C-alpha cells in the first residue's frame, strides 16, 4: 500500500499501537459477506475514477474511489479474508500502520462524498461508498476523524441529540419563535400524533423557515402531527463521521420519540443522509422492523399531491432545474417524488445532464462540507455542478437536501449566479391553495 501525499492530519492523542488495534477491530467487525465480496471482486480496472468528481476535476489518481479504502482492504486480506493465513505467513499484507491510517484520513473524509456514483460504473458492482463508510468507522474508533469540525459535531450530538448541541428546551423555544414569526400553528410534544416530522441541524441553523413550511403543510393536510423535542434532529452527523455509537444514539432517540406518541409515519427532513440512516439503517439499530413507516419529505408531499390532501396553486412556466441529492435518488430510490411535485407546481423543469440516478454530487455530501480544509477540493468538485446548472438556463435550482442547498448557495455566490437556490418543501408551502383547516 503506497501512502498518498497527505495534508497534515491532526495530532493523534491515542498511542499508535492502540490506534491501529482499534481501527483494525472496527474494520474487521464491520465486514460481512457483501463487503467481503466487494473487496474480493475488484479487478483494478480504474473505471471508478472516471465517475468521481474529485478525480475528474483533478486527474489525481489518489482520488480513485477504490484506492480510498486501501487500509480497509489490507486489514481484510490480512485478518479476515479466506487466505488471510497465507497473507500473514508470507507477509503479503503487512499490518496497517498508524502513519498510514493518518495519511489516509484526508482521502476517506475530505475527498469522498459517499455519493455512490462510482458504484454505477463499476463492472464488478462494488459499492465503494458503503466501504468508505466502514473505513470511516475504523478511523473514528482510532481517533482519526478530522478534528476541526466533524469530531466536535459528533461529540455534541452524543451529548444533546443535535449536532449543534441544541437542547430540548432550546428546540422548543425555537419552534415557538418560528411559529410566531411565520404565523403558523406549531404542534410540539403532543402525547399522541400520527406523524412526527424531524428536522436537519442545517435547517435549525440556516433555514428555520423550513420548519414553518412543514408545519404549514401538515396543518393544511389536516393530519394529527407533532414535533417531538425528545427526537427531533435527524441530521446524524455521527453517520458521516463514522461514529457508530453516536449514530445509533441519535437514531434510537427518534425511534423512541415516535413510539412514545404512537406515530405511524416519521418524516425525514430535506437531508440526504438523514433519510439513508432512518429509512435503511434505523431498523437494524433497533433490532427489528420499525412499527411505523419512514418517508422523506418529498415522498410525503408527492403522496399528498397525488391523493388530493395537498392542493397547490400551480405557477406558470417558472423555468427551474432540480438537483438530486445522491442519498435520496441514486442510493435512496426517491427520484420520482420531486419530479411529481415540480409538475404539480407547474414548473418548467429543465433537467441537468445525468439528472436522477446518475447525477453528480454537489461536492459537499458525505460530511465533506463540514471539513474546513477540504474547501478548495470541494469548490473544484462543485464546478461540474456549476456547469450543469448554468447549461439549463434555469432561474431556480430546487433541491430537497439542506446540505446540498448550502453547498449550492455557497457555490452559486462564488460563481455570481443570477439563479436562486430553493427548497422544494418551502416552495410547496408557499404555494398551498387556501384551506379552511390552515
Amino acid at each position, binding site marked *: 500500500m503506497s501512502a498518498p501525499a497527505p495534508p497534515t492530519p491532526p495530532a493523534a492523542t491515542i498511542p499508535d499501537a492502540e490506534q491501529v488495534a482499534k481501527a483494525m477491530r472496527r474494520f474487521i467487525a464491520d465486514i460481512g459477506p457483501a463487503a467481503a465480496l466487494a473487496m*474480493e471482486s475488484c479487478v483494478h480496472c480504474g473505471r471508478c475514477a*472516471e465517475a468521481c468528481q474529485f478525480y475528474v476535476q483533478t486527474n489525481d489518481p489518489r482520488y480513485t474511489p477504490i484506492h480510498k479504502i486501501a487500509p480497509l482492504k489490507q486489514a481484510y486480506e490480512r485478518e479476515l479474508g479466506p487466505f488471510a493465513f497465507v497473507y500473514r505467513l508470507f507477509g503479503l499484507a503487512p499490518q496497517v500502520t498508524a502513519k498510514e491510517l493518518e495519511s489516509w484520513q484526508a482521502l476517506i473524509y475530505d475527498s469522498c462524498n459517499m455519493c455512490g456514483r462510482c458504484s454505477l460504473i463499476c463492472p464488478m458492482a462494488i459499492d465503494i461508498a458503503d466501504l468508505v463508510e466502514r473505513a470511516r468507522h475504523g478511523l473514528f474508533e482510532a481517533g482519526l476523524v478530522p478534528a476541526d469540525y466533524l469530531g466536535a459535531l459528533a461529540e455534541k450530538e452524543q451529548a444533546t441529540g443535535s449536532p449543534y448541541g441544541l437542547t430540548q428546551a432550546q428546540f422548543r423555544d425555537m419552534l415557538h419563535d418560528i411559529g410566531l414569526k411565520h404565523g403558523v400553528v406549531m404542534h410540539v410534544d403532543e402525547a399522541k400524533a400520527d406523524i412526527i416530522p424531524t428536522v436537519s441541524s442545517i435547517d435549525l441553523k440556516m433555514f428555520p423557515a423550513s420548519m414553518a413550511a412543514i408545519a404549514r403543510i401538515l396543518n393544511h393536510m389536516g393530519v394529527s402531527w407533532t414535533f417531538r423535542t425528545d427526537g427531533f434532529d435527524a441530521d446524524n452527523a455521527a453517520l458521516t463521521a463514522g461514529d457508530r455509537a453516536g449514530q445509533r444514539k441519535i437514531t434510537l432517540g427518534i425511534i423512541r420519540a415516535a413510539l412514545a406518541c404512537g406515530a405511524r409515519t416519521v418524516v425525514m427532513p430535506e437531508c440526504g443522509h438523514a433519510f439513508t440512516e432512518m429509512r435503511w439503517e434505523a431498523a437494524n439499530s433497533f433490532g427489528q422492523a420499525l412499527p411505523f413507516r419512514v418517508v422523506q419529505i418529498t415522498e410525503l408531499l408527492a403522496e399528498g399531491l397525488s391523493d388530493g390532501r395537498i392542493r397547490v396553486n400551480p405557477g406558470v412556466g417558472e423555468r427551474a432545474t432540480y438537483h438530486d441529492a445522491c442519498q435520496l435518488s441514486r442510493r435512496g430510490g426517491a427520484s420520482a417524488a420531486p419530479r411529481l411535485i415540480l409538475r404539480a407546481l407547474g414548473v418548467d423543469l429543465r433537467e441537468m445532464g445525468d439528472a436522477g440516478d446518475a447525477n453528480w454530487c454537489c461536492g459537499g455530501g458525505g460530511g465533506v462540507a463540514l471539513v474546513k480544509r477540504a474547501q478548495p477540493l470541494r469548490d473544484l468538485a462543485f464546478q461540474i455542478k456549476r456547469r450543469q446548472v448554468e447549461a439549463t438556463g434555469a432561474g431556480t435550482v430546487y433541491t430537497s437536501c439542506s446540505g446540498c442547498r448550502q453547498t449550492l448557495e455557497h457555490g452559486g455566490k462564488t460563481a455570481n449566479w443570477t439563479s436562486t437556490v430553493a427548497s422544494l418543501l418551502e416552495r410547496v408551502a408557499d404555494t398551498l391553495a387556501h384551506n379552511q383547516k390552515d
Partner: protein
Amino acid sequence: MTLLEFARGPALQASALIMIAGMAWRMAGILLLRRRPQYAASRHSLARRMGGGASLILSRFIPRRTFWPRIAVGVMLSAVFHLGLALVFFGGAPHILLVHQATGLIWPNLPKGLIVMASGLTLAAMIALIVRRRLHPVLRLLSTADDYVSWLLVFLPVLTGILLSGEAIGDYGSLLTLHILSVEALMIWLPFGKLMHSVLVFAGRWTMGVTFARKGAAT
C-alpha cells in the same frame, strides 16, 4: 510417462482439484462471514428484488451511456479480450473435444479461421491492456503483482494456442504440452488471484442488484 502424458493426466486432475477446492474455499470464506439481518422495510417484493439482481448481472455488461466518453478505450479493449477468449474457449474444436471427453457435453465448433482471428484479437487486446496498465496513472497506482501474474497466466495459453493452430511453427507435441501446462497453471492460480472475478462478478452484481432493488434505487 512423457511430459505430455503427465500434462494430460495427473497434472490436469491435480490442477482441476486445486481450482475447484480453492474456489470453494474462497467462496465459503466470503459467504460464511457473519451476516447482519436487514430489518428495514423493502420498497419492493422479493420477486422484484431478485429481478433487480438478475437485471444488474446483465446490465453491467454495457456501461451507462453517460460514462462512455471517459471509459470507451478500456471498455472496448476489455470487451475484445473477453469476447475473444470466450469464442476461442467455447468455439475451438479441441476445447470442445476435451469438454466432451470430461463431461459428455458437446456442441458445434466454430470455423478454425474464426478461432485464429479471435485468438489474434485477444492477444492484441491483452498486449494493449498491459501497456495501458503500465501507462495510465490510475491503473499503475491500483496494480499489484496479482494483475501481472494473472495477465501472464492468461497470455501464455492464448499465445501457445495460436502457435498450435499454425501447426507449422515448432514441434507440435512440445507446443501442445506447453499449452496444456500453461492452462493448468492458470487453473491453479484462478482461485487465488483476480481471475476469480470470473465467478465473483456474478455474485457481486447479484448482491448489489438485490440490495439496491430493495431500496428502489438505481440498478
